[in-house]
């Protein structure tokens, strides 16, 4: 194997494994604090997720949303920007899909209605994402601050619209949409019965393939990554940095918005205030653990979805909040392991090459 490729692969893959070990040890300690046997709890967690069709369906459902928000964060990071606004963009996307579904006449055939609703989700998320893009490109406003603040603004705005304009009385959700819903996977594979897994997963897999292709096989993706690595150098080479930032953040927002389809069109058939439940913030963890690579993002999304669904499975033995603690620990562990692993590996390579010269 090409040694440089091998180094890059090790740098990418090692930190998540370090984090996994740290999380397992921390999890053991917490489980023991609660007076339970770690081995049993972990086994129940796995059986409740990958061990039966319902649990697995729930994992797939949760991973679908997390893949979207993870991809969103990963695309922005590839462009050297940190989109912390996936939470708000996800909510906006869900609202866009619901709004489109409510607006379409009830007889609209699914072949037209579903793509329109998905498009509405992409547009709504993309619109929210474009705000930090414009402010960054035009005024140099730091996208981290803008996206954090925008989360609160978007969520408050949606809360206002839903609670005072569009809700079903006594609830915080919109009426059910009449057209544009996506069927559950259980319609085809009976074993998934009861789980929320739905055909949105196909759309999201296509999105993963498209993002991979865009990032690594197209000129636009090359420019995006060049801007992410070294903006002045990219500019010198003729890339329009500001425009690339705007494109990257808009695409990032659209991808997060796509996640809203999973809940709104595929699960509940309505937009509900607070449906995001932190999936946008968890997207940061997914991108980090997935090392900003589309394939890694999918694997990381499955991992975090397993944790989150597994929390419900073990709730009778240990409070399910243990998974939130573990999520935090995994993120901190990966974030600290990334620079550390790079230092250790590069020092080792440097020593080896020095040795080669000496002999």
């Amino acid at each position, binding site marked *: 194997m090409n040694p440089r490729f091998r180094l890059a692969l090790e740098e990418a893959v090692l930190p998540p494994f370090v984090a996994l070990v740290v999380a397992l040890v921390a999890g053991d300690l917490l489980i023991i604090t609660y007076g339970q046997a770690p081995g049993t709890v972990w086994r129940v967690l796995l059986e409740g997720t990958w061990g039966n069709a319902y649990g697995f369906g729930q994992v797939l459902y949760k991973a679908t949303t997390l893949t979207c928000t993870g991809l969103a964060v990963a695309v922005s990071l590839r462009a050297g920007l940190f989109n912390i606004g996936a939470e708000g963009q996800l909510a906006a996307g869900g609202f866009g899909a619901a709004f489109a579904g409510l607006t379409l006449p009830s007889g609209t055939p699914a072949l037209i209605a579903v793509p329109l609703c998905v498009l509405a989700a992409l547009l709504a998320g993309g619109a929210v994402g474009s705000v930090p893009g414009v*402010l960054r490109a035009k005024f140099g406003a730091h996208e981290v601050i803008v996206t954090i603040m925008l989360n609160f*603004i978007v969520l408050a705005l949606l809360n206002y619209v839903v609670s005072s304009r569009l809700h079903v009385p006594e609830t915080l959700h919109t009426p059910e949409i009449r057209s544009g819903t996506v069927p559950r996977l259980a319609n085809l594979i009976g074993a998934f019965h009861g789980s929320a897994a739905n055909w949105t997963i196909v759309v999201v897999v296509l999105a993963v393939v498209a993002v991979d292709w865009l990032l690594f096989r197209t000129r636009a993706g090359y420019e995006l990554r060049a801007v992410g690595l070294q903006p002045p150098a990219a500019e010198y080479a003729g890339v329009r940095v500001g425009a690339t930032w705007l494109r990257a953040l808009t695409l990032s927002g659209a991808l997060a918005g796509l996640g809203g389809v999973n809940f709104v069109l595929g699960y509940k058939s309505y937009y509900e205030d607070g449906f995001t439940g932190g999936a946008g913030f968890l997207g940061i963890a997914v991108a980090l653990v997935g090392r900003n690579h589309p394939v890694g993002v999918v694997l990381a999304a499955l991992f975090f979805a397993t944790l989150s669904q597994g929390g419900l499975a073990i709730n009778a033995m240990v409070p399910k909040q243990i998974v939130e603690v573990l999520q935090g620990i995994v993120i901190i562990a990966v974030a600290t392991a990334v620079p550390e692993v790079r230092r250790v590996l590069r020092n080792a390579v440097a020593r080896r090459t020095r040795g080669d010269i000496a002999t």
Partner: protein
Amino acid sequence: MSVLLFLAQTIRIAIPYLFAAAGGALAERAGIVSLTLEGFMLGGAFGAVLGAHYTGSAWIGLVVGIWWGLMFGAVHAVASIRFKADQIVVGVAINLFAVGITRFFLQLAFGSSSNSPRITGFDSSAGGSAALLANPLVWLGLLVMPALNFVIGRTRFGLRVRAVGEHPQAAASVGVPVNRVRYAAVLASGALAALGGVYLALDQHQFTDSMTAGRGFIALAAVIFGRWHPLRAGLACLLFAGAETLQIQLQTAQLIPSQFVAMIPYALTIVAVAGVVGRSTPPAALGRGAE
């Protein structure tokens, strides 16, 4: 509505913001990103309830709350300074971790997923505005920004904080122990922000799940809106708290939907960083590790 009542209510809302914003301003001036304020506050609130519940003393609660803040600060500091981890990621993780760990121990210590039993606070027998004056944390909160302003602007430690936040290499070249100064700043920021949580918990006489409810981010907004200057950040805290008070007082009138008032701090902060009126510029080395 009397002016006095308005003032008292504003101060009551502003105290947690003032503590957290002081912590945020200190850490950020030392070059460490402070997305962690929300988590620090939550940790402080939970620590205070643990301490006050088991000893029956608000003062012990205060100490335990600060201890929790220091612990969270230590995690942030070690990850960001020793390991040079991405400070934004660590911040997000600490907030997530704080929500999880407080819920976990809430379940473990009190067997509840929503709130702790009632605890004692600092309030005296006097009710209303007078109780506010009897609370030592109120006085501390009102003094924290002027004090921080003095520390950052007039002391040797403050000069070092500014130096490591603007140009760590230059600071190191004249013998400033960059990492030590940053450790001190982040630990102090954990303790300060935790005090905001301590105040909340003692004021409400209990811990409730995720009780900080975004206050750490309003404090961060105040720091940015105040352009990383302690006194201006303090004024921003009072401004945001005043807007909230107004909204609560006018709630019955239904002039503006509450959601729009809630947006004010965030919208003002975006305007401030976009630089429409007097650009808000962060410390030069914010978020960058020292080599």
